[in-house]
């Protein structure tokens, strides 16, 4: 409310200036720098204060010993040397990589399958909306629902397993199952959304390509591998960069279900950073960890874009 008021106040204030200026700028092609500055001022402040400044500060903190209650003390690269020898860090990295591979692998394959099926079967908005539903609810809610469905005692899935004669599985409590289970929950939440992204990409492939293939007598299977997939490559590359980046930052699901356990098997990187920074108050060390995560993400994105040649299209 207050912002709307202040916005209209600036508008009124700038009115006389504007009148004089607009005549010269519109006709003479002069720069509209003054007006532009006013227009971007709020966003610029937001950018400087909440993006640029914290980014620089994050690198600075990573070079310090910093307890939240104290003041940062410069220690150079000590934190990074410590990270190299920290078994919990390597564990967290390994666990996160395992999660990302399972999460992205299944999610991408299922999304491709769903998108191709949608393309073939129906353009129904209702169906697309239904597939999108899990993406609309929060990670926390998705985690809770599956926590309940997969409960060891009375969860429906274990009831079903018992009924078929299989042994029950402690999905969140078993060391071997915890990460696959968390990966599954997030595949469930994101598969429909990713499918819609792929589906949008499929629409960019011109019809004549399929028509030509049909005339050549190419089977569905081989047209998918020989044409659809290669033509989809730039779109898939972008989708992968975004989903992999998001996947590496998994936190919510872990935080409301396993909290890093059992033992350390689900202590993913972001959860480890959170624990170091906020539970143990080692802010400098947590910042150094987040620098490492940042570098890993940058490396992953660059690699993917290179390998998938995202900038070029095979569609001449």
């Amino acid at each position, binding site marked *: 409310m207050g*912002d709307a008021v202040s916005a209209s106040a600036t508008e009124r204030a700038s*009115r006389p200036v*504007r*009148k004089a*200026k*607009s005549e010269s700028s*519109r006709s003479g092609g002069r720069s509209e*720098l003054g*007006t532009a*500055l006013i*227009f*971007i001022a*709020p*966003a610029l402040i*937001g*950018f400087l204060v*909440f*993006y640029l*400044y*914290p980014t620089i500060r*994050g690198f600075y*903190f990573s070079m310090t010993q910093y307890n939240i209650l104290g003041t940062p003390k410069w220690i150079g690269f000590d934190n990074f040397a410590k990270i190299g020898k920290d078994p919990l860090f390597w564990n967290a990295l390994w666990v996160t990589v395992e999660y990302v591979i399972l999460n992205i692998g299944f999610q991408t394959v*299922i999304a491709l*399958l769903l998108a191709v*099926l949608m393309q073939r*079967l129906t353009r129904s908005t209702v169906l697309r909306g239904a597939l*999108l*539903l899990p993406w*609309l*609810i*929060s990670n*926390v*809610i998705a985690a*809770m*629902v599956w*926590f*309940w*469905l997969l409960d060891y*005692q*009375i*969860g429906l899935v274990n009831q*079903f397993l018992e*009924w078929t004669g299989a042994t029950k599985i402690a999905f969140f409590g078993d060391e071997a199952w915890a990460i696959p289970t968390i990966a599954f929950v997030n595949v*469930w939440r994101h598969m*429909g959304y990713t499918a819609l*992204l792929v589906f*949008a*990409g499929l629409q960019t492939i011109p019809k004549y390509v399929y*028509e030509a293939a049909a005339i050549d007598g190419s089977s*569905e299977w081989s047209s998918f591998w020989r044409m659809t997939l290669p033509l989809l490559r730039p779109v898939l590359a*972008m*989708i992968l960069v975004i989903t992999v*980046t998001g996947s590496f*930052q998994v*936190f919510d699901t872990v935080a409301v279900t396993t909290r890093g356990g059992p033992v350390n098997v689900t202590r993913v990187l*972001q959860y480890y950073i959170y624990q170091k*920074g*906020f539970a143990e108050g080692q802010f400098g060390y947590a910042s150094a960890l*987040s620098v490492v*995560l940042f570098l890993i993400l940058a490396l992953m994105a660059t690699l993917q874009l290179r390998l998938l040649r995202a900038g070029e299209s095979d569609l001449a």
Partner: protein
Amino acid sequence: MATIEARAIADAENRRRKRNLTPGRIAAWVVMIGFLILTLFPFYWMLRTALSTTRSLPANPSSLLPVDFTWGAFQRVLGLGTQAQAIAEGGSGASVNFWLYLRNSVFYAGAVTVGQVFFCAMAAYAFARLRWPGRNVVFGVFLGALLVPPIFTSLPNFILIKNLGLLNTLPGMILPTFLMTPFAIFFLRQFFLGISREIEESAALDGAGPWRTFFRIILPMSTAPVTTLAILTFIQTWNDYFWPLLVGNSDQTKVLTVALGVFRSQTPAGSPDWAGLMAATLVAAAPVLVLFFAFARKIIDSIGYSGVK
């Protein structure tokens, strides 16, 4: 000539495929329906559990209908039932300050949405329409912020909010995304670029300056993308967990996602109050679901565009 013929054949082929339910199509539908069930069933199970009595759940864990039907779980969540009734049904009896958390969530998501969309629209207009030196450089730098993962800025932003004395206040939670996100500016700029310049020029001839052009022409002509962006921002902020957990974890400022996490760790009878928990998740998801059903087509159509940046 040949292409026309080819097209005719392909069309005929397509029509044939559509009419006949080939085994392939049937198999495709079976797979699709399988995924639909996987997607939708958990929602039904939430409802089924929320309408059950927690104490009776263990006796009938796989009944497809609510066990011992009751509205008790919803009453418990909304603070309408009595404490005795809550305990009798398997709740913890502790009061959940649901309405406060709901208000916090509404305020948090609402304020971020209004601020972000408005200020980013202003900036997007400057980037799309005004002529000034350094325009593209500044835009490029803004977009660069997309590359910084949220966790990286979260730690220093936490310190900043703490130093400003805004820890555990709603303004502290709202501030970092209130003024801009790179994505919102990018999204709106794309649309503003597409608006015909002639309309603007004729407005300029009538003596309209940039402010009037922005409020009277650009914004009204962009209601569709602006609404889409607002809905997406609202849903995303409503679902936020990490940031509100960091800076708004006090009882006065908890949002629903954070409160649900606490609710889940209350285990009155050794195991969670499942009915209460499911009722709470349903109520917490309700506003977003309502928004979705109201604007389904807009949201769905925006996905291809907004996701792949």
